[in-house]
């Protein structure tokens, strides 16, 4: 492993610019999509003339409810897209490190994905 105080900059580190652009784009698009879905959900729920549900539907019911045309499920899916965006950002970071053959940070990113997956499993139970 090289020290980060080395005079010669590791090209894998120097080349982080395109990785930053890819991650940034993912975060931005995810945010816009989730906000758009939430606004659509708000409009649909308001158009229905009912109050929005006070609880989100369970995770396993979101897609079936969407397929059955449930308007509150649109709101919930906007929230879930928002949740998914930082996770997709980590996956994009992993792909970028793999492409740069940066084994050290590819491993760290995989470890983070494993930690996040474990967190989801704990939350589900």
């Amino acid at each position, binding site marked *: 492993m090289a020290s980060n105080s080395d005079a010669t900059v590791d090209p894998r580190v120097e080349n982080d610019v395109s*990785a930053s652009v890819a991650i940034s784009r993912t975060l931005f698009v995810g945010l816009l999509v989730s906000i758009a879905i939430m606004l659509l959900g708000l409009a649909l729920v308001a158009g229905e003339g009912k109050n929005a549900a006070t609880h989100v539907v369970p995770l396993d019911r979101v897609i079936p409810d969407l397929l059955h045309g449930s308007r509150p499920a649109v709101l919930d899916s906007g929230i879930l897209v928002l949740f998914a965006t930082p996770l997709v950002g980590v996956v994009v970071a992993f792909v970028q490190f793999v492409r740069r053959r940066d084994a*050290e940070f590819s491993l760290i990113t995989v470890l983070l994905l494993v930690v996040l997956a*474990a967190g989801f499993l704990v*939350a589900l139970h």
Partner: protein
Amino acid sequence: MERLLSLAHAVVSFLIALLAGAFGSVLGIGGGLFIIPSLNLFLGVQLKTAIAASIVAVIATSLGGGHVYVRSGVADIRLGLILALATAPSAVVGAILATHVNARVLAAVFAVVLGASAYRMLASTRAGEPSTGTGHGHAPSRLRFRPSYREPSTGEIVPYSVSRLPLGVGSSTIAGLVSGMLGVGGGIVQVPVMNLLMGVPIKVATTTSTYVIGITAMAGAFVYYNHRPSLVDPALAVPVTIGVFIGASIGSRVLGRVSQRALRNTFTVVLVIYAIQMALRVVGFGQ
């Protein structure tokens, strides 16, 4: 009538979040510190429901700021991903704790964090943040971090190195715990850890913290979402999230000319008032 009340509730939640997002973006603190007590004290929203709405909004705040800071190269994604190894699992633990403990315990912890935030804001107004890291003199990490960042305002290349990584990662668990438990960003812990402990320049520390907060909050938010019954109330979380997003987007433009010092002093007072009101709840005053 009930529908009108529900609509008014959503509009007020949106406005609270809009203001919190706008002022939070200028003051460099997450909106959650203002949103949660405001929803709780003014709208009577249960503390745990307000926390769940806030943590959803924190993800949007992080994505909104993080994508800009990552793209500009100021946020250190390598450092951020390593710190997230500690903050994400501790946010899950914090969120699980929050769903199980009595609301009074949560209010007590919140009062302490509000008080600490007020103190920190006051201290930074007086002395200013150390712009460069203060962890120098310690050996840099052996991991391949970048050696510098480009300061956007001047174009100057600012060299830095990341030191005391194990201590920084370990201390970041507190940031995750606070974020998951209270639905706030955790920057109050994360930024000093990076700046004072790890020797990272303040600008890199704040922007990296904004990026990491999204990953941290997402891990904690999932616990609130999956709690039975779910603590995420879409009728509250969605207006709050959209409000914070719009507020943070326009905040620096609209409030850019207002004196930072005046804003900081004003919000220090607000934080102290909220801390006292939260503390009063702990001892049985209010709901």
